[in-house]
Structures are given as structure tokens and as C-alpha cells.
């Protein structure tokens, strides 16, 4: 019984979201002939890589007990910079884009740390403001990469597997190991689980949070650059709503919004779940209007199931 509970609540190798992922995979394979092909599966990986990369960083920030709503805008800014600055050389452009992401992350982290203002508020402000920055920089224009090498990279493959998918999976592995095995990763849990205790134990919680905001900024920027390589272009509206889907994926993956609990494997499951649902519903030609309703209903259902499994947290008192 205890083992079952551990298993379902994510303490063991398989988390509930993975059961869900397997279930919908089976479902869509039966419903659509095209679904279960190597090509489609790598497609799903490429399509989820954008949200997926951001979600890696978001997992850290959310385990910290914070949240970052500005990732969509950061992604947009990085994409625009990586295309718009290509006159100065590809390397410069990409570097500038990534730097911008890290700097914005650092700014968010610094504000949360030094002012004590709730991360939700700080990053909501940034979400609005950074979008403004993009428009100021691009003057509402889309940018186009004259250098096809840029978009060729986005479409390139190693063997049958797209490079973007490989980058995403590699990053996932690294972030998983960092979270599980390193001092920074463990401190991230401590800071989210009990900031007071972490502080007492001599952990520099401000620094820890700031690093995690920089990580999520980095990944948002990386996702932006990679998305730009897929399009060979950037648009000022790029990344709208991505923060919401990222947070959703992370929560589906079992990370607690209150902090102190979560995992990269769960996040990967959450990201894939959303990607597969979208792809599968496309394959089945579910009308766009119904997709919205179905996604909403599934989200709530997963939340309910998750809660039923994790009754232990409420200790049976009806509070």
C-alpha cells in the first residue's frame, strides 16, 4: 500500500503523468494511422521542445516556490534579437539573444530577492514590459533571416532524429542530473520547501533563487533562438501565452506550485502530454473550438486525480 502510494505520487520511477502519457499514446495510435510513426514522434518532440526547454527552467523556479510569467516575452525578445542582429554575425546574434534572456532572468531574480516582492508580481510586470521592449526594438516588424544556414540548422537531423529534439533531450538529461545530484539542485528543494530553514542552515536563498531565474531566462532565450531557426524569422508576437502552457506542463508533471516538490522527469511527462494531445487531436481533426474545451477539461481532471492520489498531504482533516 505504501509502495503504491509512493509509486503514484512520484517517489518511484513512474509518475502518474507518465501513465497518462502512455494512455493517450495508445489511444491516438489506435485512432490515427499516422500517429505512431517515427516521423510523427520526432515531430512531437520538435514541437514540444520549445515549451519543453522553458519548462526545464520553470521547474527549477517553481520548486523554488516562485513562478516566472515573463518567459513567453523573453522568448520573443531572444528570437527577435537572434534574427535581427544577424548582420553582425550569427554567433554575435545568438550570443546576444541568450545573454538577453539570462540578464532578464537575473533582473527578475534580483528584484524578487532584494525587494521581497512576490515573484508572480515581478514577472507579471516583466511579462508586460519585455513585450514592450520587443516592440520598441522591432518597431512592430517581423525579422527575416537572409542567412538560410540559420533555418537549415532548425530543420537538420542527425540520423532520423531532428537536432532540435536532440538538444531538448540532452538539456533535459543535464537538468535532471543537476536537480538530483548537485548541491545547487538540492538547495533548490530546500529553499522551496522551507525558506526559513534553508536560511537558518546557511543556504544563500537569494542567490539560489536568482540563479534559477537566470536558468529559466537562459532556457526561454534558447527556446526563442531555436524557434527562430525553425522559422528563419521572428515576429514580435512570438511566445504569447507560452508562460501559461509552460506552467501547466510543469504542474501536470507533479511540481507543486507552493514549492519544495517536483522533478524534471515529471515535467518531461507533462510537456509530452500536452504535445501529444495537441498533435493527436490535430491528427483526428478535432475542431479547434473543441480542442480548447478538451484541454481545459483534461487539465482539471488530471488535477483532481493527482489530488485524490496525494491525500496524505491533508492528513484526513477536512480543511
Amino acid at each position, binding site marked *: 500500500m505504501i509502495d503504491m502510494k509512493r509509486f503514484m505520487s512520484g517517489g518511484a520511477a513512474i509518475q502518474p503523468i507518465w501513465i497518462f502519457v502512455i494512455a493517450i499514446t495508445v489511444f491516438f495510435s489506435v485512432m490515427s494511422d499516422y500517429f505512431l510513426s517515427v516521423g510523427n514522434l520526432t515531430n512531437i518532440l520538435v514541437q514540444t521542445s520549445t515549451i519543453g526547454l522553458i519548462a526545464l527552467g520553470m521547474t527549477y523556479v517553481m520548486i523554488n516556490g516562485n513562478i516566472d510569467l515573463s518567459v513567453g516575452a523573453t522568448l520573443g525578445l531572444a528570437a527577435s534579437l537572434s534574427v535581427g542582429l544577424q548582420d553582425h554575425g550569427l554567433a554575435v546574434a545568438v550570443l546576444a539573444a541568450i545573454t538577453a534572456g539570462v540578464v532578464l532572468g537575473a533582473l527578475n531574480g534580483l528584484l524578487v530577492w532584494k525587494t521581497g516582492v512576490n515573484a508572480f508580481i515581478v514577472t507579471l510586470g516583466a511579462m508586460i514590459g519585455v513585450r514592450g521592449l520587443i516592440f520598441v526594438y522591432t518597431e512592430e516588424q517581423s525579422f527575416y533571416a537572409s542567412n538560410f544556414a540559420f533555418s537549415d540548422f532548425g530543420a537538420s537531423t542527425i540520423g532520423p532524429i531532428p537536432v532540435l529534439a536532440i538538444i531538448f533531450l540532452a538539456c533535459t538529461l543535464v537538468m535532471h542530473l543537476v536537480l538530483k545530484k548537485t548541491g545547487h539542485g538540492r538547495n533548490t528543494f530546500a529553499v522551496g520547501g522551507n525558506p526559513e530553514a534553508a536560511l537558518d542552515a546557511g543556504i544563500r536563498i537569494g542567490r539560489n533563487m536568482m540563479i534559477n531565474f537566470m536558468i529559466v531566462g537562459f532556457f526561454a532565450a534558447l527556446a526563442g533562438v531555436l524557434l527562430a531557426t525553425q522559422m*528563419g524569422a521572428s515576429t514580435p508576437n512570438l511566445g504569447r501565452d507560452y508562460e501559461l502552457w509552460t506552467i501547466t506542463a510543469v504542474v501536470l508533471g507533479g511540481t507543486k506550485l507552493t514549492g519544495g516538490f517536483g522533478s524534471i522527469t515529471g515535467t518531461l511527462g507533462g510537456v509530452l502530454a500536452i504535445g501529444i494531445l495537441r498533435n493527436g487531436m490535430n491528427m483526428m481533426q478535432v475542431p479547434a473550438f473543441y480542442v480548447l474545451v478538451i484541454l481545459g477539461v483534461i487539465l482539471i481532471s488530471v488535477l483532481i486525480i493527482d489530488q485524490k492520489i496525494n491525500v496524505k498531504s491533508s492528513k484526513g482533516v477536512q480543511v
Partner: protein
Amino acid sequence: EETYRIGITQNNVGVDSYQTTYESAFENAADELDNVDVVVLDAGGDVARQIGQVRNLIQQRVDAIIIWPTNGQAVIPAIRQAHRAGIPVVVTNSKIAEAGLDYIAAFSGPDNVQQGASSAEMMCEALDGQGQIVQIAGQPGYTTAMERSKGFEDRLAEACPDVEILETQPADWNREKAQRVMENFLTKYDDIDGVYAGDDNMGVGALNAAKSAGRAEDIAFIGATNFAVGYEAIERGEYYGSIYQSPVDDAEAALQTALDVLEGKEVPKMNFFETPKITADNLSEFDKPVF
């Protein structure tokens, strides 16, 4: 004879009636043909999602892809991929950038630059070549909005240099936003002679604002993509004119172009369908739009 599977990815169904009507018109047209199977997708306005959908369509090995680009530049690599996979691509409604033209089989849709220009001509007419106007543009960053603005501004400068554009603000194809923008214009400028709106939905919003402020009489309203509300307003004489653009024509033209391409017919690269000016004078020649 063989059946064709044609995939279409639309820009953002549901954001306005035009796109919705387009979708149902497209489906109806396809239904009437026995040899056509369609896969209808919607990108929800998100470029990245649209690229994913193009990839999915390539994956499903459809015979042709029709794309209503969310962005004229960002979709080019995806179109190039389809092109490389040997799937002909027809771009519908709004154009893609120069660089992509090599990879598409054809474009079918209205000429938005021309529409902007036509609106500019109507504006000149309405103001007798003299006055101060404001412009309410569509969603920033979207091709249709930019092309109409550009066509309007360029032609206006050419045709009647004495008409001055005081200011341009976007209202995202949204009537309520347009109403707000216009209210602000009305406070800011005591003298407005004309309003150019990127579509009638926004134009009617502007008209409402002016009516509330009691200044509608003095202002000429000119829109584009004639909506039912715009049609009625022209009927009532409150609205000067618009551009008649039928989503049904648009959808049918796109499907027909795709079929022509598949059947190996010689198809010109750019296929514009007629989008005539509509004012009180020729209103009776047109049916009231269904949206």
C-alpha cells in the same frame, strides 16, 4: 479518378467572422467535390503552432497544403520543407515574403496592398483631397494589417498629399478596442475629417465612438473587408465606404487553385480575386455579407 487529400492550416479561426466564414465555405466547397478529402487545421494565430501543423501535414503525406500564413516570413522554412518533400503549397489570403515565392505553387487571395490603395482613393474622394485623418490598424505584426496600412499610406501620399494622417493606432481587429482608440483620438484632436480602419469591424467601433461624442456627421469613415454591420452603416449613410471582400470567394479560389495545381494545369503565381470598392452609390450591386 484518384482522390486528393488537401491539408489547410488557417491563421486564427474564431478571432473574427471572416475567418470563420472562410472555414465553413472551404469545407462546403470541398464537400461538393467527390474527389477531395480535406484536413482542416487552425493555428490559433501562433506561428510556431502553424509550423508544427505544416510538418504534421507533411508527415501525413497530403497531396497539397494550403496555408493561411500567420506571418508572411516565419512560415517560409516550413513551406520550403513541404516543397522539398514534393508537396505543392498554395498560400491563401495573405501573402508571404519574396524569399518564399520560389517554394510555393501559387498564391490565391485578395491584394491587400491594392485594398489599402483603394481605400486611400475613397478617402481622397470623400474629403475632396483635403483634411486630417486618423488610422486604426489591425493587429500589429500581422501581414494583412501591415499591407493594408502600407497600401493606404503610399497611395494617399500619392493621390492626395493634402490629406494628412494625424496618427495611427492598432486595435487588433477588435471593435471594442477600436471604440476606445477612437474615443482617445476624439479627445486628442478637435478636428478629424476621416477615419481609415483596417476592417469594418473596427470601423464601426470608431463610428460608435464618434456617434456618442456627437461628431459622426463631420467624419468620413472608410473601412475594408465589408462586414454586415459596415454594410448596414453604409446603407444608413453613416459610413462612407469599404472594400467588398467575400470569404466565400476567398475560400473557393484557394481550393480551386490547389486543385488546378494538382491536376497539373498551368497556374499563375499570383491569383488575386476581385475586391471592389463599395460605397452608398453601388451598394445595391452587392449582397449583404453574412458575417
